[in-house]
């Protein structure tokens, strides 16, 4: 039964990819201009070259490190801020507006400011952090706010130490919210990091390579780098799912 379901899931997901490739192929035949839209076959040839030369791995590694650094900063700052917001109503009311302001500001505005404020190397890290912090903060705060008040009352009556309350009451309460926040953030992380690299020319990274391909009107290479980022996002999404599944087995069994 489980095996059948797995096969069904794989088939439906593969069908989605096949539909995209087929549509892309027909569109490229219809346009018939490799500068505007090369065929999937041409792009896969370029992709194979990028992988074989080691360029795909090296450039992605740099983008990955920047993205993960930004995500780590956002997680640390977002969880700390989220706990503070969730625990104190006044802090929540004051900072909620600020966070919504940060969230509503277009990523491009932060990139332009970052170009002025930081070295080009640091811009993608900073932009990823600023884009992800509001998601982590608000989800974490929501988890704290949704914590069962009656359980907290019990802990206060029995004078349970704050660290124990955090570990045994708040942590399980915010875990679900944090998981969905990290999942949303992961896709955003790579997209924003590449966008920042395209705009600031840090000298390396997927975005930098995409920008050079754009300047040279190598549409096939732009698409090949896009495929690399999309594939990486999907793979990391699965890895994160597995990590969460493993670390949360205590709450699920």
């Amino acid at each position, binding site marked *: 039964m489980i095996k059948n379901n797995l096969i069904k899931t794989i088939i439906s997901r593969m069908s989605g990819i096949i539909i995209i490739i087929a549509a892309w192929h027909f569109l490229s035949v219809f346009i018939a201009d490799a500068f505007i839209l090369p065929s999937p076959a041409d792009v896969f040839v370029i992709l194979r070259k990028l992988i074989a030369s080691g360029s795909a791995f090296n450039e992605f590694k740099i983008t990955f490190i920047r993205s993960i650094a930004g995500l780590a900063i956002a997680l640390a700052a977002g969880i700390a801020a989220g706990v503070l917001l969730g625990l104190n109503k006044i802090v929540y009311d004051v900072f909620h507006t600020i966070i919504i302001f940060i969230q509503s500001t277009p990523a491009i505005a932060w990139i332009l400011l970052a170009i002025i404020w930081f070295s080009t190397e640091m811009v993608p890290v900073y932009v990823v952090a600023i884009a992800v912090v509001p998601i982590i903060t608000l989800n974490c705060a929501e988890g704290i706010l949704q914590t069962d008040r*009656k*359980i907290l*009352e*019990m*802990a*206060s*009556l*029995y*004078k*349970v*130490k704050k660290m*124990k309350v955090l570990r*045994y*009451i708040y942590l*399980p309460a915010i875990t679900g919210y944090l998981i969905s926040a990290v999942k949303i953030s992961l896709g955003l992380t790579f997209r924003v990091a590449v966008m920042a690299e395209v705009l600031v020319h840090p000298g390396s990274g997927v975005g930098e390579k995409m920008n050079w391909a754009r300047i040279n009107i190598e549409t096939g290479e732009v698409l090949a780098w896009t495929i690399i980022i999309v594939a990486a996002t999907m793979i990391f999404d699965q890895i994160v799912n597995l990590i969460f599944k493993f670390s949360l087995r*205590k*709450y699920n*069994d």
Partner: protein
Amino acid sequence: MIKIKNICKNFGELEVLKNISLEIRPGKITAIWGPSGCGKTTLFNILSGLEKNFTGSIDGLPEKISYCFQEDRLLNHESVCKNLKFIRDIQDKELLQNLLHIFRLDDIKNKKVKHLSGGQKQRVSIARALYFGSGLLLLDEPFKSLDLELKLRILKDLTAFQQKHKITVMLITHDAQEAYLMADTIFTLNEKPCSVRDCHELKTKKISRTPFDSQISGIFRDYYL
């Protein structure tokens, strides 16, 4: 002696408690019997310090108070043992084992609370309250999820444990049988607003009381007429 004097509590316009005065004897079980929804839990919330907005005075309250709530209020993702240990910084292995045994929790001590039945959860909740080792134990309808046979057995064991450790217990119940079998003193309450109707000191030894004793109808006669 815990002296509760003229406790009044309103929720907006609604008068819930009206001049509640009780004297609670140390080392004894005091049952507070009244109809459902009359304000008994509000009284316990005041005594435990969870409800701070009231008038009147309470003297002689111990610093540590255990409260077995109407709902179990347990950590669902943790084991039975962990739930008991959660409320204490310094663990007492002997007391822990003793309580697990009294409440028939030995076999399920490592089981997660979320997998337990309502009755099992209620037993864990009572055991936790006793494990805290306080000077006053508040029990708010602690046996409501238990079947009659288990209820009578735990009631007997709990009473024996209380007598051995000389714990001061206040029991809220709307079950006349429970109040009669456990208590040394029974306060009966009126409703809307909640006020003390009368007080019965029970002289007969608990061991000689039975669930079908004619004395029950004697004490609660007025309410059933």
